[in-house]
């Protein structure tokens, strides 16, 4: 999951924090980081995620944001 430019992509519920997902009453924003080698073009990956998540979003407008592209092995950087 991505965390947004300023680590702002998170949802807080009580003491729990979910990074990479922003849920508001109207919108659902999912931040992802794609990793090389890409299985398919980036828009396709994002669209697949959107299609899978949208039915569970409770009528919210679902948005998928690709925050970064990383090469395997770069995760710790």
């Amino acid at each position, binding site marked *: 999951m991505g965390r947004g430019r300023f680590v702002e992509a998170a949802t807080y519920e009580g003491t729990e924090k979910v990074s990479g997902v922003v849920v508001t009453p109207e919108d659902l924003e999912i931040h992802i980081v794609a990793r090389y080698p890409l299985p398919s*073009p980036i828009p396709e990956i994002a669209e697949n995620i959107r299609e899978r998540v949208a039915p569970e979003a409770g009528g919210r407008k679902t948005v998928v944001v690709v925050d970064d592209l990383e090469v395997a092995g770069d995760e710790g950087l």
Partner: protein
Amino acid sequence: MRVFNRIFMILLFAGLFVLGVYTVVFAFDLFDYQLESLPVKDFVRGVQDFVGSVEDGGLSVLTQAFLILLAILGLIWFISELRPSAPRRVRMGRGTYVTRSVVQDEVSTVAEEVPDVLGSSVNVKARRSPGAQVGLEARVRRGEDLGTIKSGLQSTVRERLSEKGLPLSKLNIKLVEADPRQTKTRVQ
């Protein structure tokens, strides 16, 4: 424009605050300051004369030109305020976005893989329609065939971004002849 507006509004409010403090001080004769002592009579008379000459249509050409210029500036400011601000992210499709930094990194990586390019700087702007507007400045050695490098760079960047599915609506390439000793890489 928003930064300019903020600065303008801060200065305006600061001015109004200072004016308000002075008004209270003078209105209540505090610290021996009195409203009658203010030299505003000349100013009021000047304003009255100006308004009178506007009503009579007796303004000088210079004043008329100044007022027209002021009106045009106001109109330009108003129109620029009405323009919606540029989106932060690059739109790919319906509900899917990619950050500008991703496009920037990809374009930079691809450009610097081209043998003639010694270094690059990339500027990415998001648009309301799908696709990013990319400005690429590539540094090359002096004496190279700039036309060939530019067309090669254009096609390489477009091709590689299209393979990854990163949408590109406009690609502006500027080649800058540079000294290899001052670029990111000397030899490719």
